[in-house]
């Protein structure tokens, strides 16, 4: 096996930018921002917001404004997807982050 640790160490020393792209324990709002906001923010170019508005009604278009979403339902949809929305894998959106997100949106 070729030793790769020295290679990585060299990169650390010369570049100093090595870092994880994802924070360790983000808040529900931060999880939403990272994983959901690109489709579910306010705005007329947001696929999630647009679709929910057309199929559920404008008062249900914005996830962050809703009070009718049980955390368990949010978890189910995130892991299984729903029509155009694909599922999110637990390797990226971990169970812990999903729980935080579900509590945030299901508040």
């Amino acid at each position: 096996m070729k030793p790769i640790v020295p290679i990585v160490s060299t990169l650390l020393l010369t570049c100093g930018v090595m870092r994880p792209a994802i924070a360790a324990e983000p808040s529900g709002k931060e999880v939403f921002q990272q994983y959901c906001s690109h489709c579910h923010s306010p705005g007329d170019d947001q696929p999630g917001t647009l679709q929910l508005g057309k199929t559920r009604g404008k008062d249900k278009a914005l996830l962050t404004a809703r009070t009718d979403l049980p955390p368990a339902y949010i978890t189910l949809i995130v892991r299984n997807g729903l029509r155009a929305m694909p599922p999110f894998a637990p390797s990226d959106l971990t169970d812990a982050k999903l729980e935080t997100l579900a509590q945030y949106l299901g508040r």
Partner: protein
Amino acid sequence: MAEALPAGISARQLNEALTRFRKIVGDSWVFSGEKARSYHDPYPVADDTQSHRASAAVAPASTEEVQQIAKIANDLRIPLWVVSRGKNFAYGGAAPVLAGSVVLDLSRMNRILEVSEKFGYALVEPGVSYFDLYNYIQEKKLKLWLDVPDPGWGSVMGNALDHGVGYTPYGDHFGMQCGMEVVLATGEVVRTGMGAMPGSNAWQLFKYGFGPYVDGIFSQSNFGIVTKMGIWLMPEPPGYRPYMITFPREEDIEQVVEIVRPLKLGNVIQNGATIRSLVLDAAIFSTKSQYFSGKGPIPDSAARQIMADHDIGMWNFCGALYGPPPVTDALWAATRDAFSAIPGAKFYFPEDRRKSPDILLHRAETMRGVPKLTEFNFLNWNGGGGHVGFSPVSPSTGEDAIKQYRMVSGRVREAGFDYMGLMAIGFKELHHVTVIVYDQNDRDERRRLDELFRTMVREAAAEGYGEYRTHIHYMDTIAGTYGWNDNALMKMNQKIKDALDPNGILSAGKSGIWPRHLRGGKP
């Protein structure tokens, strides 16, 4: 529902593998049963519940862990399906070709290892998304631009390895790749190009190093697991001017492509030029039901209404000018002059577009490398959510463009779908990318889609048009069209496969390349 087991592997063997994987990566990073559901193809074409289903997934955090997983997979003959982030959604997402494969999910390897503003490159791991890299560059206020595909959540590395394209002058993503680290199926680690020389500081600067250039064999392939990759980034230009030119008639595509080709070859058009069809652009901001409530494709009257409502054409060419204003002014003069030959052509800059949302305002961000998910709106066109891409390549001539348009749009509409296509001229070639949006929950639509796709592949191949990329469900079909000289290329690929992956553990069936024990007489 019981998950599919890998071919020839017992439940006991699979469980033993998962137990050993857990010892490497930890219990939290092996997913089986219900937890593996998110690795299924979210937009299935196959008409059964088991095709392309993963049995489990394992998510390592380092190259060393990848090596150990490969060793275990070799010991137990467990098929692994390798994904960077698994967001290749028009082509199967994270799902494997071979049912029962264990997904080797590299999304936890998400370190941005180096970004050089001086030379314009980044060295990244597979889990780094376009959003990640963009945010990093913004936070550090680096004078660099990304080149992004339409969805920004995918892997920078994965998109390049699958020959994805973008819309700046750096739009050929694999062309902008420079230097790899690869874990071979047997566990050895190889660095390509200048990375093979200890102490070299030009790994991300010069692709070829010394000897055979091998990086290409790790793209769209199953010959190794790429764990690091260099990607060239564009220096922020001193000026940027996006524009859109609209054309009113379907048949204009012939003349448009004839005009684009010399401009593109002469670098007057600097970026990845795309000519998008009416419904594709309309679907970004509206739905079919707003214009047509019947079955089948929209009628001409609806098309005219869409054009009027959105102030777009039957074809819409989005481009951008990059450089100091005197340069962009000169390029624009030449571009405008050339396209003015087409009757009814209209020319727009962002300041001419007053309504929001607007296709040019949206594309203006994409053409300067801002990652987004706005394009996912087109999946909502008919509410069905499913989509699959059909992407034949041809010479960039008007004759080929109109021929392809008539062939594909005719078949698509005949099958009851709307034509949502674009013609992308990367450099000398024309990619005709047609997205077929379907209701994934409608069995009849899926059946019609499958018949349509196979018909289009066959008819395109008969005219010499081959797909550059495809969904997991059609990899054998497409590979079969590249059969010149008694399938000589596939036979060579199989020899490479057998040499580099003797037990056939990596991504069985990727691009039609199967390991020896699953080949079954193919091709």
